[in-house]
């Protein structure tokens, strides 16, 4: 059996259904599964599970599922080094969003990561504590700030409404996801010129830590070739051999 997880609600779910339908695959709800299981007509060896987008990322990393569709931001946050753990099969052309570094528009003297570096250092000296960055993307933030050579800061985990943190006084800077930037602007924030950490979209991804027995491989090959994407399976099976 091949297990495939897709988002259980919202626009991501609708987009997934549409994406499969365009490729001739019709999803059917499994009877009695309370809407958390489904299958494709004519593909009995593929079991479809509906999970939350972030659960899909952690299930892929844990090897609990073979395939999953979720945001690249969540995948990269869950597994900072994808190599040997996950293989991104295909970007799907929906669920676009950018993970960005944003500061208050009041900080008229800050427009780049280099400016932020200066301000971080000055802040640590003046205020005797580190500047706080609120985010739910701790891993992405760490590696991006390290690339920008910034070390004088600390991360404050944020569960939701991150864009409100600077106004609420719980953090000075945020790293958050945005599609149009409107929510950031509404909260008096701006994106730094070189502050785009990741241009994310929904990805069809394979777990490399899952148990890929002969049956699962065969079902995956069939699934991809039914969608006219057979070459994608060759790339994936190269990862199995690696």
């Amino acid at each position, binding site marked *: 059996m091949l297990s495939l997880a897709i988002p259980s609600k919202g626009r991501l779910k609708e987009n997934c259904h549409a994406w499969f339908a365009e490729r001739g695959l019709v999803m059917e709800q499994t009877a009695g599964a309370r809407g958390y299981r489904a299958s494709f007509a004519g593909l009995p060896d593929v079991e479809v599970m509906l999970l939350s987008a972030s659960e899909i990322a952690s299930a892929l990393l844990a090897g609990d599922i073979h395939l999953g569709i979720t945001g690249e931001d969540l995948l990269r946050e869950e597994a900072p*080094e994808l190599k040997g753990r996950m293989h991104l099969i295909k970007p799907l052309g929906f669920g676009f969003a950018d993970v960005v570094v944003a*500061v*208050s*528009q*009041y*900080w*008229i*003297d800050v*427009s780049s990561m*280099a400016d932020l*570096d*200066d*301000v971080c*250092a*000055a*802040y640590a000296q*003046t*205020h*005797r*504590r*580190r*500047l*706080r960055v609120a985010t739910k993307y701790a891993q992405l933030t*760490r590696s991006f*700030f*390290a690339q920008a*050579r*910034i*070390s*004088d*800061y*600390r*991360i404050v985990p944020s569960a939701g409404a991150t864009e409100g943190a*600077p*106004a609420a*006084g719980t953090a*000075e*800077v945020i790293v958050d996801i945005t599609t149009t930037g409107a929510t950031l602007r509404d*909260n*008096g*924030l701006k994106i730094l010129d070189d502050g785009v950490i990741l241009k994310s979209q929904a990805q069809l991804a394979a777990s490399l830590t899952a148990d890929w027995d002969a049956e699962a491989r065969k079902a995956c090959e069939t699934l991809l070739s039914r969608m006219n994407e057979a070459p994608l399976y060759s790339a994936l099976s190269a990862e199995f051999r690696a």
Partner: protein
Amino acid sequence: MATFPYYDAGALQALGAQADAILGLFAGRGYVHEEPSVLQPAEIFLDRSGEEIRRRTFTLTDPSGRDLALRPDLTIPICRDAILANRKWPARICYNGLAFRHQPGEPHRPTQFFQAGAELLGLEDRTAGETEILSLAIEALRVAGLKDFSLRIGDLALFNALVDALALPKQWRARLKRHFWRAGYVESLLYWLGHGDGTAKLPGTKAEIEALLDKQGDAPAAGRTRAEIIARALDRAAEAAALRLDPAMADAIAKLLDISGPAEQALAEVRALLKTTNINLDVQLAAMDARLATLKSLGVAADRVRFTAHFGRNMEYYTGFVFELWARDKEGPVQVAGGGRYDTLLESLGAKQPVSAIGCAIRTERLMAAKAVA
């Protein structure tokens, strides 16, 4: 060494005997043996050391919700306690205990290791303090039974003095100093300063800047005062005009940072290169000469000492003289000890005045492995 080391009776006995020898030496020089607790409040490391050390520090939350850390070194908790206990300066403190570090990307390296070390806090005579600690580290290796080792030395003060001598805006000097320990980055900044163009993005007068701030509506101040922002904006405007380094000068500094080799020869190279500029680093170079003389008097052969101009240890709290002692174990070269000056640490931990500080730490398990090969 294993990720989770297991110490059998033989290993414990050997480590114990070696630690006794080292602590005995420290005690003979007036160092008091102390030990902070293994679990510490997380913020004393995280607020001080930055995100890079945070990545390597094991943190946990106690049942009441307080953030704790397994000490990634003993220096910070010892210095903190010295401040809280209102110690008289100079204070001489030594220790031997476990430190804990996560090793990102290197799962084969141990997550805990023994460190023996000495801290000399609040001694006014800086040269005397450096001689004392450098000698102590070398003698500690010898008293433990290691005969052959080499040194790598450097001095962040040399680089800082170099940067201070440049006709650059204050913030750029601060930025260069802050990034000294990231060699490649400093070179690219220098190149940009010498060959790039600095264009202004902000208006140049205070009134214009204030007007711009007033236009930001409800945008949150986000922890910075209006005055702070105005001051930095004015600095930025001024520096955009001044941000230009003679390309020859920028290249000379980049070349200087590249100097590394047997100490006497390397320092001669530094002097020769400085002659082509108008920068005077006589004080800092004389201090380096004095350290070489100390090493000579300790019987360390000149060819065992390397000077590396960009050497600055990647622990962010060092501020001046830094050194590393190297030996070989069965897998190759291994750093067995290190140390240096960290003059700003105590103030950042809450000391009311600046306190001069210098210390050294010995990786006793690596030392043991190196002795096994010799």
